[in-house]
């Protein structure tokens, strides 16, 4: 079958899709968007998290056919989406007020200012990325949290990210990253 839907603001089309294919498979293998990850393909890890009509979903559990005519945002679209929201581009200014923030990165990353969404920059700055396999899903979930709750408590962050497994970090620096992004958001307003 043919499936047509909007991905990160652009209409995309895939032909010869088998009915059993997941949204995750179509994104990764047919549309050249491998950013969403495939850690379990069982709906248990959150590494494949995307926004489907704004709602975070595990794309491995969504049949591609169900997405016909709908809107998907993946990790590849986070920066554009942040810009549209009017979020300021960020170049990784450290912010000491961020709660729980201890480590002091010496300098920020190579990315050109404005190319990353604030949550992406915060993950880099806070050391929340090790192998990075959990990162795309966590970024989509954390971005959605900050969109609806600009100053989440630690308990809020833990609850919002409880569907996303990370095996490397022990989550501490992921919490730091979300706190940092929230604090930077406050600073802009």
């Amino acid at each position: 079958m043919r499936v047509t839907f909007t991905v990160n603001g652009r209409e995309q089309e895939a032909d010869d899709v088998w009915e059993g294919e997941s949204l995750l498979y179509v994104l990764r293998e047919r549309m050249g968007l491998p950013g969403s990850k495939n850690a379990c393909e069982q709906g248990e890890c959150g590494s494949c998290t995307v926004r489907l009509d704004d709602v975070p979903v595990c794309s491995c559990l969504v049949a591609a056919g169900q997405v016909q005519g709908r809107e998907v945002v993946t990790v590849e679209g986070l920066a554009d989406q942040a810009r549209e929201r009017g979020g300021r581009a960020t170049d990784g200014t450290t912010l000491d007020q961020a709660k729980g923030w201890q480590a002091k990165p010496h300098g920020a990353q190579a990315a050109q200012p404005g190319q990353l969404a604030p949550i992406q920059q915060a993950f880099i700055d806070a050391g929340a990325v090790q192998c990075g396999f959990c990162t795309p899903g966590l970024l989509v979930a954390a971005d959605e949290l900050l969109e609806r709750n600009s100053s989440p408590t630690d308990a809020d962050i833990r609850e919002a990210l409880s569907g996303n497994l990370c095996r490397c970090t022990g989550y501490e620096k992921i919490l730091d990253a979300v706190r940092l992004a929230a604090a930077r958001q406050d600073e802009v307003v």
Partner: protein
Amino acid sequence: MAGTTRTPTNLTQGAKADAGIGASTLRPDGTLKVTGEFAYSSDMWHEDMLWGFTLRSPHAHARILSVDTSDALAQAGVYAVLTHDDLPTEHKKYGLEFTDTPVLADGVVRHHGEPVALVAADHPETARRAAAKIKVEYEELPVVHDEASALAEDAPLLHPGRDDHHAHEVPHPNIVHRQPIIRGDANAAARRADVIVTGEYEVGMQDQAFLGPESGLAVPGEDGGVDLYVATQWLHSDLRQIAPVLGLPEEKVRMTLSGVGGAFGGREDLSMQIHACLLALRTGKPVKIVYNRFESFFGHVHRHPAKLWYEHGATRDGKLTHMKCRIVLDGGAYASASPAVVGNASSLSVGPYVIEDVEIEAVALYTNNPPCGAMRGFGAVQACFAYEAQMDKVAAELGMDPVEFRQLNAMTQGTIMPTGQVVDSPAPVAELLRRVKALPLPPENQWESAGQTADVRALPGGLSNTTHGEGVVRGVGYAVGIKNVGFSEGFDDYSTARVRLEVVAGEPVATVHTAMAEVGQGGVTVHAQIARTELGVQQVTIHPADTQVGSAGSTSASRQTYMTGGAVKNTCEAVRDKALQLGRRRFGTFHPAWATAELLLEGGKVVTDGGEVLADLADVLGDDVVDLELEFRHRPTEAFDIVTGQGFGHVQYSFAAHRAVVEVDTELGLVKVVELACAQDVGKALNPLSVVGQIQGGTTQGLGLAVMEEIIVDPKSKVRNPSFTDYLIPTILDTPTIPVDVLELADDHAPYGLRGIGEAPTLSSTPAVVSAIRAATGLALKRVPVRPEHITGV
């Protein structure tokens, strides 16, 4: 899809990440990882590629009577079906230490999930369905599943006619390896003891559960060779095992590391590497294989489950007199890393304590259970759980504080290990315990601190809303552990680095090329820092890891910063010397300091040790390129004597201590770990941000083993829970805050004085949590993971 391939790329760090060692510079691969562009092994893609799928055994032990692939081959879209009979050479087995693992089952399957046949098709689902059409007739055989059944008189032998290097010294052919260690006279020392404490402990089978599944892409080359893009921990070890099976010289198997989604030991053994190459060479097309999570549980080895018997004695004033122990590790159907795990378990079984009289025995068994091998902590984890439980028990028997008791017996620099090896660098065991104990405790009734009503999210049971604080008891527990760093027992454990220094667009630029597997640990970050420190340049490019450069050894045993970091440092120093020679030739006559002073490279300039600038490095280099590839070795070690266990076996030791604070709902048996503090000596923190990240990650894996993680294997040796639905790893809700106190006492034998750090925090985390649960409940708790029924007794 745009482009025909998706493969790994160079990493460069921007101008703002310009610091050397000791600074928390950010990952050079960070931007690619947050934008989704980083190319993991499962993201590899090639036009016209096929998908490979592996048919696996549903039985743990069975004879294969017949295999019929004709229906599978007849399916539309199927390009190849391979079985053991299709293997191209007489090399049909592989293995890390012993060559005992069939590439495809050879008439017998020895564990649940063993690969039997391969399919290549134009769609993953086509491949899966075709595999289901392969008809395999099995005759089930009795299984060997524990020590009693493995060593019974009439036990079926897993590998009759063994010819490996331990075969002649083991007491039974179902014992992979046995390592005793005898020092002093434990029986005589026992007579001096005022108390003697014995205990029997058990550790369940833990899974590495790295998130990036086993996967990769094999692309057949025009020269009859193959290009292989995979996630692994050691490219050259893979290569040594792959090439003979394919019947190719090693230079025709060109391996490139693709993005690795975590490893933790689970990628030391081969998984889909040979399979993908076989299918690619057979079909003449690129072949991609990606395991799903179910298959991943069968696709790699696990942590050895263990049974441990311990006896300790102590005098009334709290001095340990002796220790006896026996450790039985279940190695499963194939050897994998079992021999080295036995060496670790035995040589580290005493823990970080001074005990002069010991009697130790560790063995690994061959059984029909899933193969076990490397996992973070590697034999030391199992021992640490048992000896730390013993320390609490002896202290209680003596009426002493468990931390003070440990400090009283703690090893120090100069202590002699049971192997006779003198610990010749700092061993701040008592100090780490002091530090972790000195950290402030989380407030009592912490679930109330946010407001008047209980926040159930901070209580055992969480959002299941099982308690508002009733029946909840707090416990605090401590533990400390010792881990070796690097490959031991006489292994020639080297690493190689190639460094190129040249002028690009007027700027001096260094390129670092190694075969080091970056698995998330941050080696690439540290390599760039080292190059900046040693060469005084700002711009460093990290070349993708591949087999076009010499071996870097394994990303395991906490060794890569020491070894490949050491290799990068070593090569940079040689490159610097060459650059300075060029400078002397070009500018030596202009300034006497070129001949007389100690010269350094700093900030893109040649400077004297007095700080005087002699020249721009760019001018010194001109059009010349300095390009060197050198090997680096740590000091040699030696094998443990097979009778006494004596020998200078380990390169370096690493220490961490934990304090766990738990709250237990004693009615339901639910545990909330409230805080898990760690103090660790790291020698020198090359990148403090990464160091803390490693400690927190390792600590969390230890927590998982303490209260949730176990692969359940039934009496027929079948795996019951191969999914993230049934095998639980800690989520962000299960993981507490992890305060970290980092100590930096240099080891003079190591580059920059650093100490390998990755594994030590995984050791003491588990026993600290269990000690805290014991403190809360008063229960003995001799097995991990601790389950609710162990607490409630139902």
